[in-house]
């Protein structure tokens, strides 16, 4: 069965946002902050980056005003939705010193009911990757679970691609295929939005809106938007046989070459929508009677990450970059049954040295092949 599809007039988009608000959702959507696109709490369509687009490249990011009043005329924001489902800082519990020894206390907090407005197909895939990490293993992260189960997802099919995008190589985009409540495509005339329904909750919201069923011609038009975006994507990551190849590359000399450029700043891990590593902080008040344990995002690029008695395990930049890349593209598959990369391109854009993992993979392949050729000759 074809998913239900409707046409909503662009000027009624605000009605969609307000319908979600009236259902108790806090809206998280695209805004502009510090000259970048940023997902944050929004109140209305007024907060949208209307007419703005992003120009991304290795180590580069610029916003540009377009001559069209697009709602979603950009690709992905600098930050990721994981900030809202897997908070960067979270109080895990408190420990209190009492007359009867220490007592543990779990904080009680209300979990926000979030509507994520404008989730791209690659980002939706990333959320599904984190679902596997936090919900589908032996242990379940209750904080993630509570936020995730309540979240409403309004996906947006991409009408444009950045130079850093490579979702097509990973099969994650540019069209959202499942996991959304509603998926929206901005049609080229700038006046109509095609909305596909992906869940009962999505269907209920649609009932509030002045929509009419989409005609085959509308669907074709939306499909043309997707095809146009696909044709803009030039970056590529060859994934066939990649895991096996990478497992044999622990000693590839190219890691030394990357290490000359990598600053081990950890930007790539913080902007990555799938990176899930965390650390803990213990803090106490001045009396020492009350202590708290906080969880914060962590990066495998820090030295402390592998600290063991005697010192860190991964001391060199080479070892840390190797761990990160191999995790994304090889070991992740063994751990969670999927790649750890969705092709959003953020790690390329936000690397201050412009390191591009797709390019590094090609360099590894080139060097490996050269060695094989040497061995043959």
């Amino acid at each position: 069965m074809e998913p239900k599809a409707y046409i909503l007039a662009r000027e009624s988009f605000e009605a969609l946002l307000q319908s979600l608000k009236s259902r108790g959702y806090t809206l998280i959507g695209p805004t502009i902050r510090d000259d970048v696109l940023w997902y944050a709490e929004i109140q209305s369509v007024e907060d949208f980056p209307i007419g703005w687009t992003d120009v991304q490249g290795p180590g580069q990011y610029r916003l540009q005003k377009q001559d069209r009043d697009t709602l979603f005329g950009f690709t992905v924001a600098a930050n990721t939705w994981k900030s809202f489902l897997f908070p960067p800082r979270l109080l895990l519990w408190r420990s209190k010193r009492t007359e009867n020894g220490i007592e543990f206390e779990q904080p009680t907090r209300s979990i926000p009911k979030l509507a994520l407005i404008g989730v791209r197909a690659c980002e939706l895939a990333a959320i599904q990757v984190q679902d596997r990490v936090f919900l589908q293993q032996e242990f379940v992260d209750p904080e993630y679970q509570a936020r995730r189960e309540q979240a409403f997802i309004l996906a947006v099919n991409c009408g444009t691609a950045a130079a850093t995008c490579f979702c097509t190589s990973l099969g994650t985009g540019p069209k959202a295929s499942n996991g959304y409540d509603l998926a929206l495509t901005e049609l080229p005339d700038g006046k109509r939005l095609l909305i596909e329904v992906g869940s009962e909750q999505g269907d209920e919201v649609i009932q509030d809106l002045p929509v009419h069923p989409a005609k085959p011609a509308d669907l074709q038009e939306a499909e043309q938007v997707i095809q146009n975006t696909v044709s803009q994507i030039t970056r590529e990551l060859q994934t066939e046989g990649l895991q096996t190849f990478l497992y044999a590359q622990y000693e590839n000399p190219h890691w030394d070459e990357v290490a000359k450029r990598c600053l081990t700043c950890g930007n790539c891990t913080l902007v990555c929508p799938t990176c899930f590593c965390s650390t803990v902080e213990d803090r106490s008040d001045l009396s020492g009677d009350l202590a708290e344990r906080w969880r914060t995002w962590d990066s495998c690029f820090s030295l402390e990450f592998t600290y063991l008695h005697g010192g860190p395990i991964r001391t060199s930049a080479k070892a840390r970059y190797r761990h990160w890349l191999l995790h994304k593209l090889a070991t992740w598959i063994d751990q969670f049954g999927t790649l750890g990369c969705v092709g959003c391109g953020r790690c390329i854009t936000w690397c201050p040295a412009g390191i591009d993992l797709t390019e590094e993979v090609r360099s590894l392949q080139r060097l490996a092949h050269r060695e094989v050729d040497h061995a043959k000759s």
Partner: protein
Amino acid sequence: MAPAQRPDNTLSGGPSPWLPQKGTVVSRQRQTHDVITLGLEVPGTFSYHPGQFNMLYVHGVGEVPISISGHRTAENGHTVVFHTIKVVGNVTQALARLKKGESLGIRGPYGSAWPIETFAGNDLVLIAGGIGLAPLRPLFLHVLEHREAFGNVFLLYGARTPADIVFRRDLEQWRKRFDINIEVTVDHAWAGWYGNVGVVTKLVARAPFDPVHAVCYICGPEIMMWFTVQTLRERGVPDTNVFLSMERNMKCAIGFCGHCQYGPEFICKDGPVFPLPKIWKYLRIREL
């Protein structure tokens, strides 16, 4: 939209897996100048398998993974779980300073265990280096309890010096038995030491076990485990009969924090005990 696959072990509304329970220090036994065994009382029964570990938290200081080195049932029906801790950092130092009656946080048990049930009838070789004897101790106690189920049993232990030998009293007791072979060696000795001197692999090379039917359990520094594996291979012990306990930085022990990754393995949940074939290829990769 909510995730499609809902796992069965949903903890919605339940306690967070990060939350420790309270344990009380009921005994302190100094093993060496930098190793201490704490007896921690926890309410009710505490079931675990030899080789598993707990996360121990000291109020305001931090939390570390420590293997379980034994247990006993207290008169009040509660369980006393033993942890043998080497002081290497600030949390282990704070643990070692805890006094009787003081409390701490404990959660677990976590991780994989030494496989033993399937090896009835085999020769068993337990090989430990330094504090690595701690996670092997409950396995050894299990073997002693079911001694008739196994072939020859060996415990080969290497310590840095005679003063670094842990579980000295246990070793002395066990040596009195005629149905087990215990060999201890030290890297550096001094006057008054009449035992073996040299690395533990020397003991492995000459212990009279049947290599083809021996099952080996190893815990110690990585370099010691590497050379032990070499010796076992030379003797013809099949890789599938060799098990190692690994260690990495760990913040959560429940597969979330990512710190303990070792190639594709999470030491916290896939390990700490691994069959050799599973991690063989990673053992010699530097900075993995």
